[in-house]
Protein backbone atom coordinates (compact mmCIF):
# COMPACT_ATOMS: atom_id res chain seq x y z
CA UNK A 1 0.00 0.00 0.00
CA UNK A 2 1.41 3.37 -0.96
CA UNK A 3 1.55 6.45 1.24
CA UNK A 4 -1.31 8.18 -0.47
CA UNK A 5 -3.54 5.13 -0.21
CA UNK A 6 -3.52 4.95 3.55
CA UNK A 7 -4.14 8.64 3.85
CA UNK A 8 -7.08 8.36 1.47
CA UNK A 9 -8.45 5.55 3.61
CA UNK A 10 -8.03 7.54 6.83
CA UNK A 11 -9.89 10.45 5.27
CA UNK A 12 -12.70 8.12 4.22
CA UNK A 13 -12.88 6.86 7.80
CA UNK A 14 -13.11 10.43 9.07
CA UNK A 15 -15.96 11.19 6.69
CA UNK A 16 -17.75 7.95 7.49
CA UNK A 17 -17.42 8.79 11.19
CA UNK A 18 -19.24 12.07 10.69
CA UNK A 19 -16.31 14.35 11.51
CA UNK A 20 -17.20 17.86 10.36
CA UNK A 21 -14.62 20.08 12.08
CA UNK A 22 -10.87 19.49 11.87
CA UNK A 23 -8.36 21.53 13.87
CA UNK A 24 -4.67 21.28 13.11
CA UNK A 25 -1.24 22.76 13.37
CA UNK A 26 0.49 22.34 10.00
CA UNK A 27 2.52 19.13 9.85
CA UNK A 28 4.22 17.18 7.08
CA UNK A 29 2.85 13.83 8.22
CA UNK A 30 -0.71 15.16 8.27
CA UNK A 31 -0.32 17.22 5.08
CA UNK A 32 -2.60 15.06 2.93
CA UNK A 33 -5.35 14.88 5.58
CA UNK A 34 -5.18 18.62 6.11
CA UNK A 35 -5.41 19.28 2.38
CA UNK A 36 -8.40 16.98 2.01
CA UNK A 37 -10.12 18.62 4.97
CA UNK A 38 -9.62 22.08 3.51
CA UNK A 39 -11.03 20.95 0.16
CA UNK A 40 -14.03 19.18 1.68
CA UNK A 41 -17.09 21.42 1.56
CA UNK A 42 -18.66 19.84 4.64
CA UNK A 43 -15.65 20.09 6.96
CA UNK A 44 -14.80 23.27 8.83
CA UNK A 45 -10.99 23.41 8.85
CA UNK A 46 -9.23 25.47 11.51
CA UNK A 47 -5.50 26.16 11.47
CA UNK A 48 -4.31 26.78 15.04
CA UNK A 49 -1.40 28.75 16.43
CA UNK A 50 -0.96 26.16 19.17
CA UNK A 51 -2.43 22.71 19.74
CA UNK A 52 -3.99 23.70 23.06
CA UNK A 53 -6.33 26.02 21.20
CA UNK A 54 -7.61 22.92 19.46
CA UNK A 55 -8.63 21.28 22.72
CA UNK A 56 -10.86 24.21 23.64
CA UNK A 57 -12.03 24.62 20.04
CA UNK A 58 -13.24 21.02 19.92
CA UNK A 59 -14.99 21.28 23.28
CA UNK A 60 -16.81 24.40 22.08
CA UNK A 61 -17.78 22.77 18.80
CA UNK A 62 -19.12 19.75 20.71
CA UNK A 63 -21.26 22.05 22.85
CA UNK A 64 -22.88 23.03 19.57
CA UNK A 65 -23.17 19.48 18.29
CA UNK A 66 -20.27 18.98 15.91
CA UNK A 67 -17.93 15.99 15.73
CA UNK A 68 -14.34 17.09 15.72
CA UNK A 69 -10.86 15.80 15.03
CA UNK A 70 -7.50 17.26 16.06
CA UNK A 71 -4.33 16.67 14.09
CA UNK A 72 -0.98 17.32 15.69
CA UNK A 73 2.62 16.23 15.99
CA UNK A 74 3.89 14.57 19.16
CA UNK A 75 5.48 17.85 20.28
CA UNK A 76 2.00 19.39 20.25
CA UNK A 77 0.71 16.94 22.84
CA UNK A 78 2.92 18.67 25.38
CA UNK A 79 1.29 21.99 24.54
CA UNK A 80 -2.15 20.60 25.41
CA UNK A 81 -1.71 19.29 28.94
CA UNK A 82 -3.49 21.86 31.10
CA UNK A 83 -6.10 22.61 28.45
CA UNK A 84 -7.05 18.94 28.58
CA UNK A 85 -8.54 19.78 32.00
CA UNK A 86 -11.50 21.00 29.99
CA UNK A 87 -11.94 17.73 28.12
CA UNK A 88 -11.49 15.67 31.26
CA UNK A 89 -13.71 17.65 33.60
CA UNK A 90 -16.51 18.09 31.05
CA UNK A 91 -16.04 14.63 29.52
CA UNK A 92 -16.29 15.84 25.95
CA UNK A 93 -15.50 13.29 23.27
CA UNK A 94 -12.12 13.89 21.68
CA UNK A 95 -10.16 12.24 18.90
CA UNK A 96 -6.56 13.24 18.25
CA UNK A 97 -4.34 11.80 15.54
CA UNK A 98 -0.69 12.28 16.45
CA UNK A 99 2.21 11.94 14.04
CA UNK A 100 5.15 10.74 16.08
CA UNK A 101 8.56 12.35 16.04
CA UNK A 102 11.68 11.56 17.98
CA UNK A 103 11.33 7.78 17.94
CA UNK A 104 12.80 6.38 14.69
CA UNK A 105 15.45 7.72 12.31
CA UNK A 106 14.90 11.14 13.86
CA UNK A 107 17.47 13.65 12.62
CA UNK A 108 16.57 16.28 15.21
CA UNK A 109 17.39 15.31 18.78
CA UNK A 110 15.19 18.12 20.09
CA UNK A 111 12.18 16.02 19.07
CA UNK A 112 13.18 13.18 21.38
CA UNK A 113 12.24 14.58 24.81
CA UNK A 114 8.57 15.13 23.92
CA UNK A 115 8.33 12.22 21.49
CA UNK A 116 9.45 9.81 24.15
CA UNK A 117 6.95 11.30 26.62
CA UNK A 118 3.91 11.60 24.36
CA UNK A 119 2.23 8.24 24.95
CA UNK A 120 2.66 8.31 28.74
CA UNK A 121 1.53 11.93 28.92
CA UNK A 122 -1.67 11.09 27.08
CA UNK A 123 -2.29 8.11 29.31
CA UNK A 124 -1.79 10.25 32.40
CA UNK A 125 -4.50 12.52 30.97
CA UNK A 126 -6.94 9.58 30.72
CA UNK A 127 -6.65 9.14 26.98
CA UNK A 128 -7.09 5.74 25.42
CA UNK A 129 -4.03 5.43 23.23
CA UNK A 130 -4.01 3.39 20.01
CA UNK A 131 -0.65 3.03 18.35
CA UNK A 132 -0.43 2.36 14.60
CA UNK A 133 2.73 0.80 13.21
CA UNK A 134 1.33 -0.55 9.94
CA UNK A 135 -0.15 1.79 7.34
CA UNK A 136 -2.81 -0.81 6.52
CA UNK A 137 -4.19 -0.51 10.06
CA UNK A 138 -4.44 3.28 10.16
CA UNK A 139 -7.91 3.77 8.72
CA UNK A 140 -9.57 1.05 10.78
CA UNK A 141 -7.92 2.36 13.95
CA UNK A 142 -9.14 5.88 13.27
CA UNK A 143 -12.65 4.60 12.50
CA UNK A 144 -12.68 2.65 15.77
CA UNK A 145 -11.43 5.69 17.68
CA UNK A 146 -14.19 7.92 16.32
CA UNK A 147 -16.86 5.32 17.10
CA UNK A 148 -15.62 4.85 20.65
CA UNK A 149 -15.11 8.53 21.41
CA UNK A 150 -18.58 9.52 20.27
CA UNK A 151 -20.33 6.49 21.68
CA UNK A 152 -19.30 7.33 25.21
CA UNK A 153 -17.66 10.75 25.54
CA UNK A 154 -14.19 9.23 25.65
CA UNK A 155 -10.83 10.78 24.70
CA UNK A 156 -8.79 8.73 22.25
CA UNK A 157 -5.41 9.38 20.66
CA UNK A 158 -4.22 7.50 17.60
CA UNK A 159 -0.43 7.60 17.38
CA UNK A 160 1.04 7.13 13.91
CA UNK A 161 4.53 5.77 14.43
CA UNK A 162 7.48 7.49 12.87
CA UNK A 163 8.65 4.19 11.44
CA UNK A 164 5.38 3.90 9.55
CA UNK A 165 5.46 7.51 8.40
CA UNK A 166 8.98 7.09 7.08
CA UNK A 167 12.11 9.15 7.22
CA UNK A 168 11.59 12.88 7.01
CA UNK A 169 11.60 14.20 3.48
CA UNK A 170 12.45 17.87 3.36
CA UNK A 171 9.72 19.96 1.77
CA UNK A 172 10.99 22.08 -1.13
Amino acid at each position, binding site marked *: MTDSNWQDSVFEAIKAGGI*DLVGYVPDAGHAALIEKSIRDADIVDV*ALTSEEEGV*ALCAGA*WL*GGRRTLLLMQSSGVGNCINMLSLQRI*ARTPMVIIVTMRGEYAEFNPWQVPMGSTTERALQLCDFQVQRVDQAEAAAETVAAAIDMAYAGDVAIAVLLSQKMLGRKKWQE
Partner: protein
Amino acid sequence: MAGVIAQLKRRAVVRDMLANRQGLTVISGLGSPTYDVAAVADHERNFYLWGAMGGAVAMGLGLALARPDLDVLVVTGDGEMLMGMGSLATVGVKAPANLAILVLDNGRYGETGMQQSHTSTACDLCAIARACGIKDSWQVSTAAELRRIRDDFQRNGSVRFLQAKVADDQPGRVMPTRDAVANKLRFRRAVDAESAPSNAKP
Protein backbone atom coordinates in the same frame (compact mmCIF):
# COMPACT_ATOMS: atom_id res chain seq x y z
CA MET B 1 -15.86 63.24 42.80
CA ALA B 2 -15.47 66.37 40.73
CA GLY B 3 -13.08 66.05 37.83
CA VAL B 4 -12.82 62.31 38.08
CA ILE B 5 -14.51 60.24 35.40
CA ALA B 6 -16.24 57.29 36.98
CA GLN B 7 -14.59 54.05 35.97
CA LEU B 8 -16.62 51.25 34.51
CA LYS B 9 -17.66 48.54 36.95
CA ARG B 10 -17.27 45.00 35.67
CA ARG B 11 -20.62 43.78 36.97
CA ALA B 12 -22.44 46.70 35.41
CA VAL B 13 -20.78 46.06 32.04
CA VAL B 14 -21.75 42.39 32.07
CA ARG B 15 -25.28 43.14 33.26
CA ASP B 16 -25.61 45.61 30.41
CA MET B 17 -24.36 43.07 27.85
CA LEU B 18 -26.64 40.30 29.04
CA ALA B 19 -29.80 42.39 29.32
CA ASN B 20 -32.43 41.11 26.89
CA ARG B 21 -30.07 38.32 25.88
CA GLN B 22 -32.71 36.20 24.10
CA GLY B 23 -30.89 33.30 22.41
CA LEU B 24 -27.37 34.49 23.24
CA THR B 25 -24.90 31.79 24.28
CA VAL B 26 -22.12 32.73 26.71
CA ILE B 27 -18.74 31.20 27.47
CA SER B 28 -17.12 32.73 30.57
CA GLY B 29 -13.42 32.66 31.36
CA LEU B 30 -12.20 31.41 34.71
CA GLY B 31 -12.21 33.60 37.80
CA SER B 32 -14.09 36.87 38.03
CA PRO B 33 -15.72 36.75 34.56
CA THR B 34 -17.40 33.47 35.51
CA TYR B 35 -18.66 35.09 38.74
CA ASP B 36 -19.78 38.18 36.82
CA VAL B 37 -21.82 36.16 34.33
CA ALA B 38 -23.33 34.09 37.14
CA ALA B 39 -24.11 37.24 39.13
CA VAL B 40 -26.37 38.54 36.37
CA ALA B 41 -28.32 35.28 36.30
CA ASP B 42 -27.67 31.61 35.83
CA HIS B 43 -28.82 30.56 32.37
CA GLU B 44 -29.05 27.32 30.43
CA ARG B 45 -27.05 28.90 27.60
CA ASN B 46 -24.07 29.73 29.84
CA PHE B 47 -20.96 27.59 29.97
CA TYR B 48 -18.70 28.52 32.87
CA LEU B 49 -14.98 27.83 32.79
CA TRP B 50 -13.31 27.30 36.16
CA GLY B 51 -9.96 26.36 34.67
CA ALA B 52 -8.36 25.63 31.28
CA MET B 53 -6.90 29.13 31.41
CA GLY B 54 -6.40 30.64 27.97
CA GLY B 55 -9.14 28.55 26.39
CA ALA B 56 -12.23 30.76 26.57
CA VAL B 57 -11.85 32.42 23.18
CA ALA B 58 -10.91 29.18 21.41
CA MET B 59 -13.94 27.50 22.96
CA GLY B 60 -16.19 30.33 21.83
CA LEU B 61 -14.66 30.07 18.36
CA GLY B 62 -15.44 26.35 18.22
CA LEU B 63 -19.05 26.98 19.21
CA ALA B 64 -19.41 29.87 16.76
CA LEU B 65 -18.03 27.83 13.87
CA ALA B 66 -20.11 24.82 14.83
CA ARG B 67 -23.32 26.80 15.01
CA PRO B 68 -23.61 29.81 12.69
CA ASP B 69 -27.24 30.00 13.81
CA LEU B 70 -26.23 30.96 17.38
CA ASP B 71 -24.95 34.26 18.76
CA VAL B 72 -21.85 33.56 20.84
CA LEU B 73 -20.39 35.90 23.47
CA VAL B 74 -17.12 35.13 25.24
CA VAL B 75 -16.69 37.04 28.51
CA THR B 76 -13.20 36.86 29.90
CA GLY B 77 -10.50 38.81 31.71
CA ASP B 78 -7.18 40.33 30.73
CA GLY B 79 -5.08 37.61 32.36
CA GLU B 80 -6.99 34.80 30.64
CA MET B 81 -6.88 36.64 27.32
CA LEU B 82 -3.13 37.16 27.59
CA MET B 83 -2.63 33.43 28.09
CA GLY B 84 -4.72 32.63 25.02
CA MET B 85 -3.51 35.44 22.79
CA GLY B 86 -2.76 33.09 19.91
CA SER B 87 -6.45 32.29 19.70
CA LEU B 88 -7.13 35.89 18.67
CA ALA B 89 -4.97 35.25 15.59
CA THR B 90 -7.03 32.15 14.84
CA VAL B 91 -10.27 34.08 15.36
CA GLY B 92 -9.02 36.77 12.98
CA VAL B 93 -8.43 34.16 10.28
CA LYS B 94 -11.77 32.37 10.64
CA ALA B 95 -13.71 35.55 11.50
CA PRO B 96 -17.10 34.02 12.33
CA ALA B 97 -19.75 36.73 12.12
CA ASN B 98 -21.61 35.34 15.13
CA LEU B 99 -18.73 35.66 17.63
CA ALA B 100 -18.18 38.54 20.04
CA ILE B 101 -15.40 38.70 22.63
CA LEU B 102 -15.66 40.90 25.73
CA VAL B 103 -12.51 41.32 27.81
CA LEU B 104 -13.06 42.83 31.26
CA ASP B 105 -9.68 44.43 31.71
CA ASN B 106 -8.86 45.52 35.23
CA GLY B 107 -5.12 45.13 34.63
CA ARG B 108 -4.96 42.65 37.51
CA TYR B 109 -4.95 38.97 38.37
CA GLY B 110 -7.95 39.00 40.68
CA GLU B 111 -7.83 35.37 41.77
CA THR B 112 -4.26 35.44 42.97
CA GLY B 113 -3.90 38.69 44.88
CA MET B 114 -4.48 41.49 42.35
CA GLN B 115 -1.01 41.41 40.88
CA GLN B 116 -0.54 43.62 37.81
CA SER B 117 -1.06 42.11 34.39
CA HIS B 118 0.72 43.21 31.22
CA THR B 119 -2.31 45.30 30.21
CA SER B 120 -1.74 47.65 33.13
CA THR B 121 1.53 48.80 31.57
CA ALA B 122 2.68 48.06 28.02
CA CYS B 123 0.17 45.73 26.41
CA ASP B 124 -2.81 46.95 24.34
CA LEU B 125 -5.20 44.04 23.76
CA CYS B 126 -7.51 46.03 21.50
CA ALA B 127 -4.63 46.90 19.19
CA ILE B 128 -3.61 43.24 19.18
CA ALA B 129 -7.12 42.13 18.27
CA ARG B 130 -7.23 44.66 15.44
CA ALA B 131 -3.80 43.59 14.25
CA CYS B 132 -5.06 40.00 14.20
CA GLY B 133 -7.64 41.07 11.63
CA ILE B 134 -10.59 41.71 13.93
CA LYS B 135 -11.51 45.06 12.41
CA ASP B 136 -14.45 45.67 14.73
CA SER B 137 -12.36 46.05 17.87
CA TRP B 138 -13.01 48.68 20.48
CA GLN B 139 -11.57 49.83 23.77
CA VAL B 140 -13.84 51.67 26.19
CA SER B 141 -13.24 53.04 29.66
CA THR B 142 -16.36 55.08 30.41
CA ALA B 143 -20.08 54.42 30.43
CA ALA B 144 -20.56 56.97 27.66
CA GLU B 145 -18.03 55.22 25.43
CA LEU B 146 -19.65 51.88 26.13
CA ARG B 147 -23.09 53.25 25.23
CA ARG B 148 -21.74 54.63 21.96
CA ILE B 149 -20.47 51.30 20.65
CA ARG B 150 -22.73 48.83 22.42
CA ASP B 151 -25.17 48.28 19.56
CA ASP B 152 -22.32 47.72 17.11
CA PHE B 153 -20.64 45.29 19.49
CA GLN B 154 -23.83 43.31 19.95
CA ARG B 155 -24.77 43.20 16.28
CA ASN B 156 -24.23 39.80 14.69
CA GLY B 157 -22.67 40.34 11.26
CA SER B 158 -18.92 40.42 11.80
CA VAL B 159 -16.51 39.11 14.43
CA ARG B 160 -16.19 41.64 17.25
CA PHE B 161 -13.80 42.40 20.13
CA LEU B 162 -14.34 44.76 23.06
CA GLN B 163 -11.80 45.60 25.70
CA ALA B 164 -13.61 47.24 28.61
CA LYS B 165 -11.23 48.97 30.96
CA VAL B 166 -12.88 48.39 34.32
CA ALA B 167 -12.18 49.37 37.91
CA ASP B 168 -10.20 46.92 39.97
CA ASP B 169 -13.03 46.45 42.43
CA GLN B 170 -13.75 42.95 43.61
CA PRO B 171 -17.47 42.34 43.85
CA GLY B 172 -18.51 39.30 45.85
CA ARG B 173 -18.04 35.90 44.30
CA VAL B 174 -21.20 34.46 42.82
CA MET B 175 -20.37 30.85 42.15
CA PRO B 176 -22.22 28.96 39.45
CA THR B 177 -21.99 25.19 39.08
CA ARG B 178 -18.53 23.67 39.02
CA ASP B 179 -19.91 20.45 37.58
CA ALA B 180 -18.79 20.75 33.97
CA VAL B 181 -20.61 17.59 32.88
CA ALA B 182 -23.93 18.90 34.17
CA ASN B 183 -23.17 22.30 32.63
CA LYS B 184 -22.29 20.66 29.30
CA LEU B 185 -25.44 18.54 29.20
CA ARG B 186 -27.69 21.45 30.10
CA PHE B 187 -26.06 23.67 27.47
CA ARG B 188 -26.30 21.02 24.76
CA ARG B 189 -29.97 20.45 25.49
CA ALA B 190 -30.63 24.19 25.41
CA VAL B 191 -29.10 24.61 21.94
CA ASP B 192 -30.44 21.31 20.63
CA ALA B 193 -26.95 20.01 19.93
CA GLU B 194 -28.07 16.45 19.23
CA SER B 195 -30.10 17.51 16.22
CA ALA B 196 -27.91 20.39 15.08
CA PRO B 197 -27.58 20.46 11.33
CA SER B 198 -24.10 19.80 10.06
CA ASN B 199 -23.54 22.67 7.74
CA ALA B 200 -21.07 23.39 5.01
CA LYS B 201 -18.14 25.76 5.13
CA PRO B 202 -19.16 29.36 5.75
